[in-house]
């Protein structure tokens, strides 16, 4: 068993290290392989991955967002960048209010399990999830658990790729986008308000501390949604805004201050939560204007 474990782990480690695309580590590898760190790094979940076009904000920027990943993952990822001395000048972090709800379990850190035993922050975070975690990782191969198929797919894709993107993944507009958006936003009306989880602020605080240690400027933002959220996120957003204000972190909140051209235009959306490429161009433009304003104010103050 030990022989099989170590042998297969060696093989898969080799594959992993040579993979430069995809969200199972390839994208992180590609970012780490860049000669120079970018000026602006975009981090977050699908609502920044598909919606923030790096070159629209700054020619020297990179989108390192990963779909479905919350703050535990982002903190772990930042610790890798810090360790490898690949910190950018500015981080644009997407905050999803749903990540601050009580059903979050921080288990998304497991998506960085390749770094278990290789990065102290990630190892500790995974060990804190349950007592059984240490036993699972006695098998080195477990670091590739649930990843084999995407890893093979991304490895083959890497072999066939000559130029790698700057991390942005576009959702090209489709004829059925409008109907999907209207249909999925109707369903949102039935969903109840979620409770705020204070523990998520600790993770955000860890993220801020890592930025401060590397003199990286942090700007947070929240993408808009198609439907009217009413007061579903009211308590959560109030807590996030208060916390960020206390830390003097700029916050661009499109949930309470929607981008006008995106409103009531379902053809710009993929569903109630995600913009398609046409909508992404509008959000990216708006983000650039807000960041420029923040930078101008910052320069004036200093």
């Amino acid at each position, binding site marked *: 068993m030990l022989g*099989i474990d170590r042998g297969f782990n060696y093989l898969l480690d080799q594959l992993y290290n040579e993979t430069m695309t995809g969200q199972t580590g390839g994208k992180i590898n590609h970012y780490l392989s860049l000669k120079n760190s970018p000026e602006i790094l975009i981090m977050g979940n699908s609502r920044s991955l598909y919606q923030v076009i790096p070159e629209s904000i700054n020619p020297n920027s990179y989108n390192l967002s990963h779909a*479905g990943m919350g703050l535990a993952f982002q903190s772990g990822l930042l610790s890798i960048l810090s360790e490898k001395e690949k910190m950018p000048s500015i981080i644009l972090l997407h905050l999803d209010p749903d990540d601050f709800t009580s059903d979050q379990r921080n288990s998304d850190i497991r998506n960085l399990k390749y770094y278990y035993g290789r990065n102290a922050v990630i190892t500790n975070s995974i060990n804190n999830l349950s007592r*059984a975690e240490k*036993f699972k990782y006695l098998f080195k*191969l477990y670091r*590739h*658990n*649930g990843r084999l198929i995407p890893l093979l797919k991304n490895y083959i894709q890497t072999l066939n790729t000559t130029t790698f993107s700057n991390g942005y993944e576009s959702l090209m507009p489709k004829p*059925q986008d409008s109907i999907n958006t209207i249909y999925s936003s109707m369903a949102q009306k*039935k969903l109840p308000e979620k409770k705020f989880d204070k523990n998520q602020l600790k993770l955000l605080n860890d993220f801020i501390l890592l930025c401060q240690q590397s003199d990286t400027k942090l700007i947070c933002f929240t993408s808009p949604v198609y439907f009217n959220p009413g007061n579903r996120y009211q308590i959560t957003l109030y807590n996030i805004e208060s916390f960020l204000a206390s830390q003097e972190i700029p916050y661009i909140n499109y949930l309470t201050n929607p981008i006008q051209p995106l409103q009531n235009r379902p053809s710009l959306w993929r569903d109630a939560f995600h913009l398609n490429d046409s909508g992404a161009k509008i959000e990216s433009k708006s983000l650039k204007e807000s960041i420029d304003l923040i930078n101008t104010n910052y320069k004036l103050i200093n």
Partner: protein
Amino acid sequence: MRTLYCRVIMLFNSFQFLLYFPTVTLIYFLLPHKYRWAHLLLSSCIFYCSFIPVYIFILLLTIIIDYTAGILIEQSSGKKRRLYLTISLIANLGVLGFFKYYNFFIENINLLFTSLGIEIQSLPYLGIILPIGLSFHTFQAMSYTIEVYKGNQKAESHFGIYSLYVMFYPQLVAGPIERPQNIIPQFREKKKFSFPEFISGLQQMAWGLFKKVVVADQLSIYVNSIYNNWEVNSGLTLIVATYAFAFQIYCDFSGYSDIAQGAARTMGFKLMDNFNLPYFSKSISEFWRRWHISLSSWLKDYLYISLGGNRISNSRTYTNLFITMLLGGLWHGASWNFIIWGFLNGLYLSIEKYFQTLKLKISFPGNRFLKMFITFNLISFTWIFFRAESFRQAIEIICNIISPTSFWNLRIQDTGIFAGMTLSLLILLLIELFFFRGKKTVEIYKMRSLLSAVLYFSLIFLLIILFGVAEGDQFIYFQF
């Protein structure tokens, strides 16, 4: 999936069990034969107490009642025998009814009065947690007193052996629901360690673990993501999720049964088969001969046949089928969804019976596969009610399936998970189709050489480590 109301520590797919199982098996073979029953009983008590320890006293109470009833039934004659049997059945069904059906009963009484416009003070609900595996060990205990009453089984005089019959840890919480004739004599046999038997048991456990953590738990990620957001999903997505649930519940439950059978076999005990490739069935009645065999045979022997079975008029046979399947549905849980699930199965069986009476024989190429396909789809339809949280939700899911709005829009969710679940399902189907077909499931675990056993374990190990879901759900049937 419904929130399970228990905090089980000793799951078959837990690390605790990884320590518990070899320890219990090792001590079993190290001990002299006369102490083995006590060791197994004590180990089973520890296993049960890893859930909610206090419930062991309820189990103990029913064990005392059934043990005494068994002896009294054997010693008496005439009406007294029936009286003792009735007392035993009332005690068992009373405990089951109180813990499992009380709140459901109260809920429906309150609802009935409200809908009739009668204002009464709402009857109170009980804030209790269902003892784990209650339906399983209650039915097993009932089969003992019924068999003693029928004269098919001698009353067990050894209290410890009888207790072990109810509490034997591999099948304590989710079956197979054993018959006393099969298992009690095995506790008295002097078991010698058999290496081939031991390896065969481990192989069956490994296969069960593969079914649970690789297939069922991967499928559950997809199924949960679709069913928990059923409002925003439609057509093909819900159909694929329902098919996925059909395989999830099969792999979850048959995986548990394999681990239970395998764990027992390592010590030389042979538990009854609980599944026999049910989705290869060509009719609903065949499906019920292959699915949860220990329950369906229990219902057939003690309920369907007792009601008269099919030796009476057609209309009574249909009624008996409905009653049996409705109660079979209710056995799974106190919910209208399970009753509807039982009703649909009763309806299918009655229609099938009706066509059998017409003696129609239609045959054409591919007939066999068409029958399998139809049977699988009919059964999958019933799983919608089994999986949905409420009757209303099940109906709305069916409406969303047939709604033409974005019918062809298949939601994959996570490509990696979807690909992993498809691959593991393919492995399962290939193995079951090409290797298991035509053989009894147990036979396949008897490997010819040590090399083939090593290869088998290595492959399962690789699949579990690479594809297994370590943070997976509990076994679905634990809640029953």
